[in-house]
Structures are given as C-alpha cells and as structure tokens.
C-alpha cells in the first residue's frame, strides 16, 4: 500500500511535468500558426510565447529531475477525494442557482445545513447545533447581501 502511495506521488510529479510540456507545445504551436494580429513592441504574442518557453523549460526540468534523481519521499502528499472535489463544485453551482431563484436566506440555511450534515462525523452528529448554525448563517447572509452589499437577484420565489 505504502509502495503504491509513494509511486503514485512520483507519477503525480511526472504527470505535472508532462502536462506542462503538453501545454507549452500546444501554446507554441498556437503562437506559430494561430490568428495573431501584428503589433508594435514584438507583437501581442510575445509575452505568451515567452511564458510558453518558460513552461517548456520548467516541464522538462521537472521530468528530467524526477527521472534522474533517486526517490525521496515527499512529506507534502495531498489526498483529495474526487467526491469532495465534485461535491464541492456542484454544491457551489447549486448554491448560486438556489440563491438567485429561491432566495438568499432559505438557500443558505438549507444548503449550508445540508453540507454541515454531510461533512460531520457520524459518531458526533449534532443536528440541533447544525440547525442553529445554519439558521444563523442564513440570517447573516441575508443581512450582508441584501443590506450591506446588495446583490442583483431577480424575483426569487422565497426570501
């Protein structure tokens, strides 16, 4: 398991090197064959081109460095479950749409409460506390975004 984990990290770094290289090559091809308007001072492709070359060099350095160097465990391995990434982003989209169509106070209370429930440890679930925090958050958000820094929300169903 440990061996797999270390290998995964090594591939992660290699993966970033490959990604950087790919992006740089695609970018340089785009600079070469893309539809760029000529302009003074080297043209508007100059800085993007320099950035792609720097990315190319960095990508090569990462790849060569990782391939050449002996393995050294990295203490900064980060594990982010895919479900958290997808869930977080979907929650964000749902939250924004709900605020615009349902209303700030109700959306915040319901969605913040739901997220708290989903993230709370099962052996230490405190529904009463979650309800209180969610209601307070709904009230604070309503105050902040209708009174302090009002946002444009067209006729939400609730409030």
């Amino acid at each position: 398991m440990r061996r797999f984990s270390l290998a995964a990290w090594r591939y992660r770094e290699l993966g970033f090197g490959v990604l950087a290289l790919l992006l740089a090559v695609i970018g340089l091809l785009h600079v070469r064959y893309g539809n760029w308007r000529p302009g003074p001072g080297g043209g508007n492709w100059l800085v993007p081109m320099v950035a792609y070359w720097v990315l190319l060099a960095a990508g090569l350095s990462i790849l060569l460095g990782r391939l050449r160097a002996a393995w050294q465990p990295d203490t900064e391995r980060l594990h982010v479950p895919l479900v958290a990434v997808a869930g977080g982003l979907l929650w964000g989209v749902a939250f924004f749409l709900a605020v615009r169509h349902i209303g700030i106070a109700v959306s915040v209370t319901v969605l913040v409460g739901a997220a708290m429930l989903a993230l709370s440890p099962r052996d230490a679930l405190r529904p009463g506390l979650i309800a209180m925090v969610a209601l307070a958050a709904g009230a604070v958000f309503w105050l902040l975004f209708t009174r302090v820094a009002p946002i444009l929300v067209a006729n939400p169903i609730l409030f």
Partner: protein
Amino acid sequence: MMEFLAEAFALALSPEVMLFALIGIGVGVTVGAIPGLSGDMAIAILLPFVFVMEPAAALGLLVGIYKGSMFGGSISAITFGVPGTAGAAATVIDGYQAKLKGQPNRALHTALYSSIIGDTGSDLVLIFLALPLAAVALMFGPVEFFALYVVSLTLVAALTMGKVARGIAAAALGVMLAMIGRDPITGAQRLTFGLPELSGGIGLVPLLVGVFAVSEIIVQAGRAWMRRSGREMADITARAEALGYDVSKDRLDWPTFRATLKATLLGTGMGTFIGALPGAGASLAAFMSYGVAQRLSRKPQEFGKGSLEGVAAAEAGNSATSGSTFIPLFAFGIPGSATAALFGAALIMMGITPGPTMIKENMSLIYALFIMLIYANLFNFCISKLLLPVYSRLAMIRGEYVLPVVLGLAILGTFAASNSVKDVWVLLAAGLLGVGLRWFGVPLGPLVLGFIVGPGLEQSLRQALMLGRNDWTHLVQSPIAIGIYLGTLAILVGFWLLTRARPESADGAAGGGKGAT
C-alpha cells in the same frame, strides 16, 4: 506635509476605522488559529466588501485580519502541534515541545511578544523605506521596470522552498492567464478561444478567491469527508480535549523573556529582509530565522526540545515579514507575496493604483495605513494578552461548521463585487485549478503573482522594445537594470549558501514542520 499627517491621523484614529481594525484582529486571530483557514483566505473573501466600505475602514479591517492571523497561526501550533498557518510551521518545532514540557503559557507569551516585536520592526522599516524607494522608482523607465518584474518572478519561483521548477511553471501559468483578453497596446483580442465572455480577461477577485479560498475549502472538506465515518477523530478537537490546557501552570518572567530577545531581534532582522524579497514568504523567513538563531545560540542543543529561543526566532521571523512584504508593492507596484497581492487588489478596487506614484497621490490614506499598521500591533498585543486562554479554544472549532459558510461567502461575495455571473464560474474554475495544482504539489503563490505581474511585465517589455527599436540588448543597457539583475544574483547565491550550510538538526526540524502543515 504636516497637513497630510494631520489628515492621516484623523483618518486612522476615527472610531469607525479603529473599530474595523479591532474586528479585523478578532477575525484574523480566529482564522489563523483554525488549521486550514488563513488570513489570506479571509482577506480574499472580504475583498468584494471593499467596494462598499470607506477606503480607510476597509484597510483597517484588512490590516487587522493580516496582523491577527500572523499571531493566530502560532496558537494552534503551540497548543496542539498543528500550525494554523504555513508561516507558523516553524513555531511547531519548539512551541509544541514547550507545551509538552508543561510550558504552554510561556511559549504562547514568547510567541506573542516576539510576534509583536517582529511585526512592529518590520512596519517601521516599511514606513521609512517605502517613500525613498518610491522616489527612486520614479526615475525608472520601461527597461528598469521590466528588470524588476523579471526579478520578482525569478525570486518568487526560486525561493519556493524545494519546488523551483514547479514554482517557475506556476508563475508562467499565471502570466499566461493574465494574457487572456485584450492586448493592452492594440486592443486586439487574444486567447479567448471564441468566447466573448473572455474578451474582458479574467477578473482578479474571482481568480484570487478561487485559487486561495475555494481550493483550500475543497481540500479541507475532502479531509472532513474522509474522517466523517468511523472513529478517526485524530483531529484538533480530539487532541485538544485529550491534552487539555491550563494557562495558570506557568508564567513568563522577564529574565526568561530577556534570554529570548537575541533570537527575537535576529528573527526580526531576517524576517524583515526576507519579507521584502518578492516571493520569499513567511514560511521561509520563519525557518531561516530559526536556523540562524540556532546557529548563534548559546544553547543550540535545546532547539527542537521546547526552546523558547526557537519559538521567539520562528515567530519573530514569521511576523517580521508582515510590514516589509509591502515594500515592493508600495515602492514599485509589484506585490512581493500573496498577501501583498491581495492588498494590491484591494487598493485597485478602491481606485488606487499601487506603484511609485501611489504614496504621493494618496498621501493621507497611505500614511493613515502606516499609522494603522502600528496601532494594530498594539491592539493585537492587548487583545491577545487578555484573551489568550480563550483563543487557544478557537482551534477546536470544527471545520465542517465553518467550511460551507466560507464557501457560500466566497461565492456570493464574488458575485456581489461585480454582479457578474461569469465571475462566479471563473471563481469555481479557479478553485478547481487550485485543487489540481495543490494535488500536483505546485505552489499557488507564484501563479497568483504571475497573474498580477503579467500585464505590467508585458507593458514594460513591449515599451522597452519599442524604445529600443526591437533590439533586445536594449533591455540590458541601463545601469540600474544591470544593478537589479546583479543584486538578485547576489541574493540568490546568498540564499543558496545559507540553505546549503544549514545544520542537520534544523533541516530535520524544518522538514518536520512542513510535514505537519
């Protein structure tokens, strides 16, 4: 001049501004003390509210948050062995050991005093250096500014601890993201891929909030999700409850603190210098101060075993970056750190362009900011001294209650800043980008600095080339530019030598600290 000073004092000492500074300190210590949240995240989320606030009040709030979070990070580092912020990672090494030795109060007070001393020293350097440097910068042309931009990006990447190639790649990615939209010279669209929404470019606020805050929230939510089932509660709460905390156990007396003063002053000097360099950051300053203090200590063998000198050096080094990190921003308009970038964004939102003319054009506000920097330290000291026992409980606040609220605030705050739906999608995309880069172990600071510095870099390069009739050697013909390049080379060599000659124990300690982050 006296007129401006009087105006500045009136602005800075108005009850509203002082109240916001106090609130900021409270918020800053809270977010600093809770592992996973940081002052940068809080500043990023509050950026949209800068629009609706008086500039001085908004600056007071942001200064308070920044200062509070610098010390807040050390609370959980000492009390529970978990650094609240990256800058407090070096404080864990001796702070937590001191706590285990039964000296939590001494360690916390040492951290507080050295943090305030380091912070104040750094603020004074900023106040006395920013104006002369800005005056020098007024003589700079495109060639000199191009040299400064190149040097900042090089330093940002080169001083990213152990990740130079990844730092350079991140900086290049940031510059590329900044190129999306219209060419500043001809107005032609580029890199929009046919999407009219991208013709205006990517907004600074959604990118900053997305990369710093949203990605961190998703990572923390992932951790909460992984430990929600079973009894894997080896987190802060469980550890805090198991360890307990009794503030009356020990007291920090003057002779004990006096023994740490040398380390505090060393940390202040190191931190102030490192903080003024673009990209070096609080974490590097803290570890380097710790290493140098150990080397010059009479009791180096006690470092790593609960040495208060170690706590003092790390905390002073960490906090001493807080004032000097604004020097490149105020003097040259180049943000030297993520925090400076966030303050730069706040200033831009207030209609103030950071750069050499900024101080002259906004004399009273900038001097008011200087006054705020100083009295915020005093506020931080008084409040923290009084509330230290309460603060140590802040780290016990559970992430699952905070994260959804913070994410909601980030989304609606970004929307409130521009009422643009596009910005919300950019925010979420930037969050995804931030998570991806973190997963790959790529530092986020260089990406953001590349994004902010990119337009200035392009403008100065193309203006310089136009002036030199497309002759690239024109870029290295200015004595000032050559001096800037040589100075940077000297700094890089100096850092390389210092890092290379670091004692074994400090390296180990540093690694441990980083691992604990």
